[in-house]
C-alpha cells in the first residue's frame, strides 16, 4: 500500500499569479487542494485610520492607492459621499468629465484583468495586446490629470482640471478603435479550445451563494443577477445614458470572462454618448468652501467600480476631518468565496479561479 501524505504549500506572497502580495496556505494531496486559507494584509496601509486625521480633500490621494487599477472610481466614491453629506452638487461639465474618466478607468481595469488572466492561464500575447490599449487610456488620463495611475483628479464638488484641448476628440476616436481591438481579442482568445476547456465550468457557484457571500460586480452578474448600481441606483449622470448590463447564467469563470468583456463594450457605449452630450463650456468645480465641514451625522454611498460595489461610509462630527471613514472594498468581499471554491480543485484551477475573481491587493488590504 502506498502511503500518501498531505503537503502544506505556501502560494505567495511572492508567487507570480497572486497579483500582488496575496498569500494562500493550501493543503494539497498530490495536486488536489484539500484546504485553502487566504492570508491577507501584506499591503495594509491603514487608509481608514489615516483618513481620520486628514481633511476631506487630503483623503482623495489615499483612495487612489486602494484599487490602483481603477483609481477614478475610488476618487469618485469619496467625493460623492462628501457631496451627499454637504449637499454640494457638481456642475454638469464636471460630471461628464468624471463619467468619462471613470468609464475609461473601467475599460483599463478590465483590460488589465483580461491580459493578466490570460497570462495566468499561460498565454503571453494577450497581455501585451491588452496593455497596448490600456496604455492609450492611461495616456489620455495622464493628459487629463497629470498622473498615470494615482490620478488624484476629482475634488469635492467637481474635478481639478478641465479637459485639455482636443482631448474629447481623442476619447471619441478611441471608441471605434477599441471596438475593433475587442473583435480581435475575441478572435484570438474567446474561441480558443484550450482556453474554453480551462475556464468552462471552473469555479462555479450559484446565485444564492453569490448573494450570501456578498459578491458584487461581474462576480455577481455571472450568476444571472442583473444588478449594477449604475442602472439600479443611478448616481452621477448615469441615468442619461443608454446601456445594458451584461449578465450570464452559469456562474463559472467563463461567464465572468464574458461579463467583463461585454462590460467593456457597454462602457464604450457610455463613452460614445458622453462625448456627444459633453457640454461646450461651463465650470468644472462647484462653489465649495476651502475647508469642507460636512454637517454632523453619517452617510453611506455606494457606486459600481469595475470590481463591484464600492461603498464609502462617513461619520462626521462637524469637524474638517471625518470622525470615522470606512470603505466597502469590493475585492475584499469578493475574495471571501475563494476557500469554498478551491476545495477539491487542482493547482492549475487555483490560478484560474483566483484570477477570475479579479482582486486588487491594494483594495483587499485597504
Amino acid at each position, binding site marked *: 500500500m502506498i502511503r500518501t501524505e498531505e*503537503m502544506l*504549500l505556501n502560494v505567495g506572497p511572492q*508567487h*507570480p*499569479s497572486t497579483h500582488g502580495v496575496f498569500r494562500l496556505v493550501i493543503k494539497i494531496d498530490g*495536486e488536489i487542494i484539500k484546504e485553502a486559507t487566504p492570508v491577507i494584509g501584506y499591503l495594509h496601509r491603514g487608509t481608514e485610520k489615516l483618513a481620520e486625521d486628514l481633511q476631506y480633500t487630503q483623503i482623495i490621494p489615499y483612495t487612489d492607492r486602494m484599487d490602483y487599477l481603477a483609481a477614478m472610481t475610488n476618487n469618485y466614491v469619496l467625493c460623492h459621499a462628501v457631496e451627499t453629506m454637504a449637499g454640494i452638487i457638481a456642475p454638469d461639465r464636471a460630471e461628464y468629465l468624471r463619467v468619462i474618466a471613470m468609464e475609461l478607468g473601467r475599460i483599463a481595469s478590465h483590460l488589465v484583468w483580461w491580459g493578466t488572466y*490570460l*497570462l*495566468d*492561464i*499561460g*498565454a*503571453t*500575447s494577450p497581455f*501585451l*495586446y491588452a496593455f*497596448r490599449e490600456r496604455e492609450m487610456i492611461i495616456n489620455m488620463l495622464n493628459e487629463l490629470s497629470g498622473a498615470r495611475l494615482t490620478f488624484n483628479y476629482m475634488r469635492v464638488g467637481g474635478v481639478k482640471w478641465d479637459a485639455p484641448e482636443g482631448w474629447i476628440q481623442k476619447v471619441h476616436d478611441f471608441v471605434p478603435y477599441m471596438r475593433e481591438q475587442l473583435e480581435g481579442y475575441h478572435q*484570438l*482568445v474567446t474561441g*480558443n479550445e*484550450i*482556453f474554453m*476547456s*480551462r475556464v468552462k465550468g471552473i469555479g462555479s457557484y450559484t446565485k444564492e451563494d453569490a448573494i450570501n457571500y456578498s459578491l458584487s460586480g461581474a462576480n455577481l452578474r455571472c450568476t444571472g443577477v442583473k444588478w449594477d448600481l449604475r442602472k439600479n441606483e443611478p448616481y452621477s449622470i448615469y441615468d442619461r445614458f443608454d446601456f445594458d448590463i451584461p449578465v450570464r447564467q452559469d456562474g463559472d469563470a467563463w461567464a465572468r470572462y464574458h461579463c467583463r468583456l461585454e462590460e467593456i463594450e457597454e462602457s464604450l457605449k457610455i463613452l460614445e454618448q458622453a462625448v456627444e452630450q459633453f457640454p461646450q463650456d461651463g465650470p468644472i468645480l462647484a462653489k465649495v468652501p476651502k475647508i469642507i465641514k460636512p454637517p454632523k451625522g453619517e452617510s453611506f454611498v455606494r457606486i459600481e467600480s469595475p470590481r463591484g460595489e464600492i461603498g464609502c461610509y462617513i461619520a462626521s462630527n462637524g469637524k474638517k476631518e471625518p470622525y470615522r471613514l470606512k470603505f466597502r472594498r469590493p475585492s475584499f468581499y469578493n475574495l471571501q468565496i475563494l476557500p469554498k471554491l478551491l476545495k477539491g480543485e*487542482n*493547482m*492549475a*484551477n*487555483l*490560478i484560474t479561479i483566483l484570477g477570475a475573481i479579479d482582486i486588487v491587493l491594494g483594495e483587499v488590504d485597504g
Partner: protein
Amino acid sequence: MIQELLQSSPGLLNLGIFSLLAVLLLFVVLGFVTYGILSERKVMGFMQMRIGPNQVGGRWALLQTVADVLKLLIKEDTIPKVADRPLYIIAPVIAFAPAFMVLAALPFTDKFQFADMGIGLLYYIAVSGITTVGIVTAGWASNNKYALLGGMRAAAQMISYEIPLVMSVVGIVLLTGSLNLNEIVEAQKNIWYIVLQPVAFIVFLIASVAELNRVPFDLPEAESELVAGYHVEYSGFRWAMFMLSEYVYMFAMASLTTILFLGGWHPLPFLGFIPAAVWFALKFSLVIYLLIWIRVTFPRLRADQLMEFGWKVLLPVALANIFVTALLKELFSMF
C-alpha cells in the same frame, strides 16, 4: 566521407578528424542555440508588438545571448542546504547529455552525418527519453515542493507523449521499410511524407511540442502555477544547462521533423541548384518559426486535460494512422 572513416581502421588521424567534426557540430549547435534564442525573442517581439532585444551587439542585438550566457557563467552557484547534493549536481548533466547525443544520428545533408545507424530513429527516441530522468531527478533533489510538482508533471507528460510520438512515425517506417534516417530521407525524393502522412505529421507535431515542454504543454515549468517548476532552485550555469538542453532539443526536434516529414535536404522541384544544406536550413527554420508561433498563440493546458488528450486523442489517432497506412500499403503492393 564519414562512412569511409568509420569503416577504416582506427588511428590517430581518424580520431583527430572525428573530434574536429564533433567540435564543428558543437559550434553549429551552440551557434544555433545562441541565435535560436535571439530569433525566438525577436519573433515573439514582432508578434507581440514589442521591439525585443536591441541593445547588446548592434541593432539586431547579435550579442545578446552571448551576454546572457556570460552573465549566467559568473553567477553564484547556489545549492540549497536541504537538497540531495550529489543528485542535485548530476541532474542537469543527465538532462543535458542526451540532448547532444541525439544529434549524432541526424543526417543534416547527404554528406554531413555522424552515425549512419540502421536504427537511427529508434536511437533518437530512446536517447531523448533519458532527459526525463534528469528532470525528475532535478525536481526531487531540489527538495522544493514546487520543483517536486514540476518534476512529477514532467515525468507524466513526457512518458505519455513519447508514445504517440513513436506511434506517429511508425507509419513512415512502414512506408520506407527502414528505421535508418538516411533511407527515410532518400525515400522522400519524389514526394514528402507530409503529403503521404498528414495525420501522422499533425500528431507528431503536437507530441513533439509536448516533448519539448513548450507552450501549450509547458506544464512542468508552468510559470504562473509552479513558478518555474523543476528548475526553481537552480541558478547560474546549472540552470543554463537545463535551458541549453531545452534549446538543443528544439534544434534536434526541428531537424527530425524536417527529416521525417519535409524531405530533409531534398530541394523543391526545379530548384535543385540550391545546395542541400540551404534547403535543410530553410525547412528547419520554418519548423522553428512554427514552434515560436505556437508558443505565442496558445494558452496552457491543464495537467489532467493534457493526459486525456495524449491518451484518448493522440494515441488512438496515431494507431488508426498505422492501421490505415499498413492497409493501403498492402493494397497498393497487390496491384
